[in-house]
């Protein structure tokens, strides 16, 4: 499709299980972002990939969280040994980073993956 695609849209898991959330960005977008949004709250920055550079992992809340981006395209956010406080909507976004006048770095968002940890 033409937009950012995230899967699954909803995930219910038991405490202690591992989960993987997938993001398929817009083709050609070199920057990919993961954010977390708890109910009624703002967006918490988690991690940011830009081209072939090392990702900015400064927002990952603990070492249970990791993300990778294979081939500069699809990204997977993995949460190990999930806790109830991990319950949130996980939003992925992508943007172009080419240096041309029309590029503003506007982020295009997927619809998110709602994670519920029981």
């Amino acid at each position, binding site marked *: 499709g033409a937009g*950012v695609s995230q899967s699954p849209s909803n995930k219910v898991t038991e405490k202690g299980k591992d989960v993987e959330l997938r993001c398929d960005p817009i083709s050609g977008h070199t*920057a990919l*972002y993961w*954010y977390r*949004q708890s*109910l*009624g*709250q*703002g*967006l*918490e*920055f988690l991690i*940011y990939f*830009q081209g072939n*550079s090392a990702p*900015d992992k400064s*927002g990952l809340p603990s070492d249970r969280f990791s993300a990778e981006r294979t081939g500069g395209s699809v990204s997977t956010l993995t949460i190990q040994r999930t806790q109830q406080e991990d319950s949130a*909507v996980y*939003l992925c*976004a992508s*943007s172009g*980073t080419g240096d041309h006048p029309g590029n*503003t*770095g*506007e*982020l*295009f*968002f*997927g*619809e*998110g993956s709602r994670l519920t940890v029981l």
Partner: protein
Amino acid sequence: SQQGEEDPQALSIQEGENATMNCSYKTSINNLQWYRQNSGRGLVHLILIRSNEREKHSGRLRVTLDTSKKSSSLLITASRAADTASYFCAQRVGGGFKTIFGAGTRLFVKA
């Protein structure tokens, strides 16, 4: 929030009135963007203002930027019930494209 704050946290107005939301940020920025979120899912980009601009318009939206005060405001004129949503400011920081969001303002427009 990681980068700045928005106020008010929530705003309730009548249809036809104007809505003003403010955003403050902490560090120098390349640009500031405003996004809208309807249902707690994906965000949609509304408008961008660059650090060397002071005001920008798009339809019923007007954005101002004061870099000396590290603040921005979003004005929605002649609001409609369909404008009910959460509005977030976001700043591109550092030398790359890292983008940080504020906590958002929840706008409710009563018909």
